[in-house]
Each structure stands twice: as structure tokens, then as C-alpha cells.
């Protein structure tokens, strides 16, 4: 065995440990595993590389992807390019915070516990809710957990879910629900890009209605109207999101009457890395807190009356009450939650609003420019930093030509919504300049 610096145990360490357990070789540790379950030959993996060879290899892999700033990416669809202030990256990289695990012991974890508590506080404020948990894996699992929570509270067995919720979130929800006897009913979207609520009046056995706002088509849902429709019924309103920056400009889910607000927090200071990591944000009303999944940090005082933080209401969790737990996940996405709280605190309330306005204004610029150039914007509902364009048939060719020029002209929607042929979902954040947008229009018009 080659002793590499990544492996903490020297051959002497290993020999000492084997001696202590009275086994001759490492192989002996596996003696209790039946012969026919064991692999005889070595794994077929390449030899190790030197550090410089490995760097080269990684650079080649990275070079095969289209990433900013080399590419101008007009694509969001659940993952957003935002500028991250240097202070956030610096603070997040501090060794006190970079740990793979969440804290059980308040005696040794006050810093992390306080940081999570601050995350919960700012998340509650941003979403307009009374209590937020320490985070879930991602927006999709947050939605699935929200629907299970709504079923626990309402004691009903069916939920209605807007088809304008991120298609991948809905797939995760379906996976969660597949082994249960709970039913998912899909609400289609209307010609203005918002969810059709008219079927709700014929569904009297619903436990929850879930919509996303801004939705996957970029449109703001009329949350106030939905809340009004549900008023007086025992149906929970679950508001999901993939771009929480929108609430710097638009009313928050809580202000619109949401019972649960959940979604993806990647846009808050977490880079767009291939497939992750992500941040599931989750908040609700205080009266539902005992049904909420996930870790929760609370504030208390120690014996000397000094402020301190501890994990609280742990009886909801599976390490205390396995089969009665509110979720089978009993941890959080701590480092991503810390990135989000640092990002929110760095921007501050007014900075957050300004940034949201900037995203909106730039997006409106591109919408207007595309409309002037004769392209159709099929959904008239208000948007935030994403919107749908219908390009002429055969735009695929143009799309490929733009890609060669390092411009990604949005996400073709036909893969997720077969009826939306030639429709593309475009996104503009603060990182896209006016010149980038003008260049896009120019290239499309060629």
C-alpha cells in the first residue's frame, strides 16, 4: 500500500491496531463475510496520479463544461449565477466553520449553533414566516418534506401540486410519495403562465396545495388569491421557490398567507457547481413547529444567565423517536446554510432589495429588447429574473451557433413540457451586462 498524505494511518499504525484486535492482516477483518460475497480480484481503477497530473486531468474535465465567466449563461431554471462577495468566501473557508457535521454538543459548538440560529432568523425574515429549520438537502427534498408535513397536519391523503413547480422537484416529490398511499393531483398552468386553481373547488379532500413563485416558467403566482381561495378550509398552502432573491422585490410567501415556505437557497452565495451542493430552505408558522422536519437551533441561557444556543424540539427527530419522527433525515446542510446567512448578512436588507431590483430591471430590459426584435413572450404574468420566449421554429440551429460563440441562450422547455415546443426559459442576473444582452439579441437576429 502506498502511504499517501490523504490517508492518516501509517503502516505502523495499522500494524498496532491489528495487533490490538489480534488479527494478522487487514484481510482478516473481513473473514466473517462469506467467501462468495467477497471480491477476489482488485477493483479496476486507474493507478494514482501525481498532483500535477491530477490537476491537468481536472482542468481537462473542467474545460469540457460551459461555465461563466467564459460563457455568457442566460440559463437559471433552478440554479442561478450571482456574484458572491469576497467576505462570504473568506468567512466560509475558516476552519471553525468548515466541518462536515452538525453539532450535538452545545458545550463545544456554540459558534456553529449561533451561526445556524442566525441562518434560521434571516430565513424566517426573508420568507415572512415565524420559524425556519436549520435546512434540508435541497429545494426538491424541502418540497417533499413540506407535503408530508402538510399531510400530517391536515390528516388528509391527497395534495394538489402545480405543474409550474420545477419538474425535478416534482419528480423527487413523486419518489417520496411512491411507497405511500398519498395521492398527488396535478394542477395545470393557464395561458398567462400561472397555475389553474379552478379544479380546487371540486377537491374537498385535499390536505395541501403547492405552488412555486416565481414558478418554473418565471411567472409570479397570485399567492394572495390562492390563500383567499383556501381560507376557512383545512388545506395548507405550501409555497415553493427556486430563486429566493425574488422576495427582495416581491411579497414573501408568509406575507401572502403561506403555511409552509420551502425551496432552494443556492442563489444565496452558493456557487453553481456541477450538480450541487444545494440548500433546502424550510419555514412555517409557529403553531406547526412540532410537525416540522429537520434540525432546529434554539436560544436559551446557561446557569450564569448568559445567552447560549442548543438544538431544540429534538423529539421530532428520528434519533429520539425513530418511527414517529417527522422526517428520516436528521441532519442539515450546515456549510451551505452558513454560506446563505453570510451572504444575506453581507448584503443586508437594503442591499438585498437593490440586488433584487437590479435583477428585475435587467430582465425587463432583455424582455423588451426581445419583444422589439419580434419574438413572442407567451406568458403575460409578471416575472422576476426569468421568463419564457417563443423563438421561431428551427431555433435549435441558432442555439447551437450561439453555443459555439459561448452564449447559452436559455433552457429549451420542450424536454419538460412537450407542449412548449420552441419555448426557451431565459434568465438574467446582475452578472449579465447590457453589452451581453445586446450581443445576444444581435446574434439571434443574424
Amino acid at each position, binding site marked *: 500500500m502506498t502511504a499517501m498524505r490523504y490517508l492518516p494511518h501509517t503502516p505502523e499504525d495499522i500494524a498496532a491496531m491489528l495487533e490490538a484486535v489480534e488479527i494478522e492482516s487487514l484481510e482478516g477483518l473481513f473473514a466473517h463475510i462469506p467467501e462468495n460475497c467477497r471480491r477476489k480480484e482488485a477493483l479496476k481503477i486507474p493507478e494514482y496520479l501525481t498532483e500535477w497530473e491530477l490537476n491537468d486531468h481536472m482542468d481537462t474535465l473542467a474545460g469540457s463544461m460551459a461555465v461563466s465567466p467564459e460563457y455568457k449563461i442566460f440559463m437559471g431554471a433552478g440554479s442561478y449565477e450571482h456574484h458572491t462577495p469576497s467576505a462570504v468566501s473568506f468567512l466560509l473557508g475558516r476552519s471553525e466553520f468548515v466541518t462536515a457535521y452538525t453539532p450535538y454538543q452545545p458545550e463545544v459548538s456554540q459558534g456553529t449553533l449561533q451561526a445556524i440560529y442566525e441562518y434560521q432568523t434571516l430565513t424566517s425574515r426573508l420568507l415572512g414566516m415565524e420559524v425556519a429549520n436549520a435546512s434540508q438537502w435541497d429545494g426538491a427534498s424541502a418540497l417533499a418534506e413540506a407535503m408530508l408535513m402538510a399531510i400530517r397536519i391536515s390528516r388528509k391523503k391527497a395534495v394538489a401540486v402545480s405543474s409550474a413547480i420545477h419538474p425535478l422537484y416534482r419528480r423527487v416529490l413523486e419518489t417520496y410519495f411512491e411507497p405511500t398511499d398519498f395521492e398527488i393531483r396535478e394542477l395545470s398552468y393557464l395561458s398567462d403562465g400561472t397555475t389553474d386553481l379552478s379544479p380546487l373547488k371540486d377537491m374537498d379532500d385535499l390536505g395541501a396545495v403547492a405552488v412555486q413563485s416565481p414558478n418554473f416558467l418565471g411567472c409570479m403566482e397570485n399567492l394572495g388569491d390562492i390563500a383567499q381561495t383556501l381560507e376557512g378550509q383545512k388545506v395548507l398552502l405550501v409555497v415553493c421557490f427556486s430563486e429566493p432573491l425574488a422576495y427582495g422585490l416581491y411579497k414573501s410567501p408568509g406575507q401572502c398567507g403561506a403555511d409552509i415556505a420551502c425551496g432552494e437557497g443556492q442563489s444565496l452565495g452558493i456557487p453553481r457547481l456541477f450538480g450541487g451542493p444545494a440548500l433546502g430552505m424550510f419555514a412555517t408558522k409557529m403553531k406547526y413547529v*412540532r410537525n416540522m422536519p429537520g434540525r432546529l437551533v434554539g436560544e436559551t441561557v446557561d446557569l450564569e444567565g448568559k445567552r447560549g444556543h442548543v438544538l431544540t424540539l429534538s*423529539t421530532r427527530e428520528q434519533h*429520539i*423517536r425513530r418511527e*414517529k419522527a417527522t422526517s428520516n433525515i436528521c441532519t442539515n446542510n450546515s456549510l451551505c446554510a452558513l454560506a446563505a446567512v453570510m451572504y444575506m448578512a453581507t448584503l443586508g436588507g437594503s442591499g438585498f432589495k437593490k440586488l433584487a431590483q437590479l435583477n428585475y430591471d435587467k430582465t425587463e430590459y432583455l424582455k423588451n429588447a426581445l419583444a422589439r426584435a419580434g419574438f413572442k413572450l407567451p406568458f403575460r404574468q409578471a416575472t422576476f429574473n426569468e421568463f419564457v420566449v417563443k423563438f421561431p421554429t428551427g431555433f435549435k440551429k441558432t442555439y447551437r451557433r450561439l453555443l459555439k460563440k459561448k452564449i447559452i441562450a436559455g433552457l429549451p422547455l420542450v424536454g419538460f413540457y412537450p407542449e412548449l415546443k420552441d419555448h426557451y426559459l431565459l434568465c438574467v442576473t446582475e452578472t449579465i451586462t447590457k453589452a451581453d444582452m445586446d450581443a445576444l439579441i444581435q446574434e439571434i437576429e443574424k
Partner: protein
Amino acid sequence: MKELNELNFPDDVRYAESHEWARSDGDRVKVGISDYAQDQLGDIVFIELPEVGDTLDKGEEFGTVESVKAVSELYLPVAGEVVAINDTLEDAPEKVNNSPYGDGWMIEIKAENPSEMDDLLGNDAYLATLKG
């Protein structure tokens, strides 16, 4: 925790081995937990109760009681429909510690079969199970 002889086991209620008590008045039965149960649990911080109108079987779980030490399930001593819950426990769960047979009652049911009360233990028999 107290010694058994310091605990109170009144004879106007009947006891389940899972430590709930039941007090009948015609077909109406009030249910709570025994002095022994509250003493074992310690300071009670939350009680989850069913909804009025729920119908439950004998031995079925009707709620949970959470103390600073543990969470325990509550089991219904006689089958019936829940006609009232003690919703003052939501804000004052300590009533169960202070007055387990009085203000700390939990639910009232309309018993399906009031004779099920006879299957429960009298105070002496219950105390005998505690002495093991």
C-alpha cells in the same frame, strides 16, 4: 422520583397497565395518566391529543406526552369516540404533573362498551403491578 408510598392512587378511577387511568360517569369516560406515570416522566412540556370526533379502539394510541426526559405514547383504556379534550394542557402541560387525576385530565370519550371499564385494574391491583 418519589417512593411508591408517596404517590397517590385514588380508588375512584381504574388503571391500565400502560399507566393511564379512566374515570366513568355513565358512558362518559375521562382519561389521564397516573401519578406514577407523571412522576416517572418528570416535568411535562408538551401533550399531543386527538381531535374531538376521532373514534379509537381500546389500546389504540390517542396521543403523546413529552417531558424533559422522554416522549411516551398514550393508549386508550376503553374504546370510544373522543367528545372532549383538555385544551388547557396546550399552554399549561404542567397540570399533568401537579394534578394528574384532576386538572390534568386529558380526554373524555363516549365509551363504545362501558363494561370495558371492568377489564381495567383497581388501585390495589395497579399498585401491585408497580411493585412487580
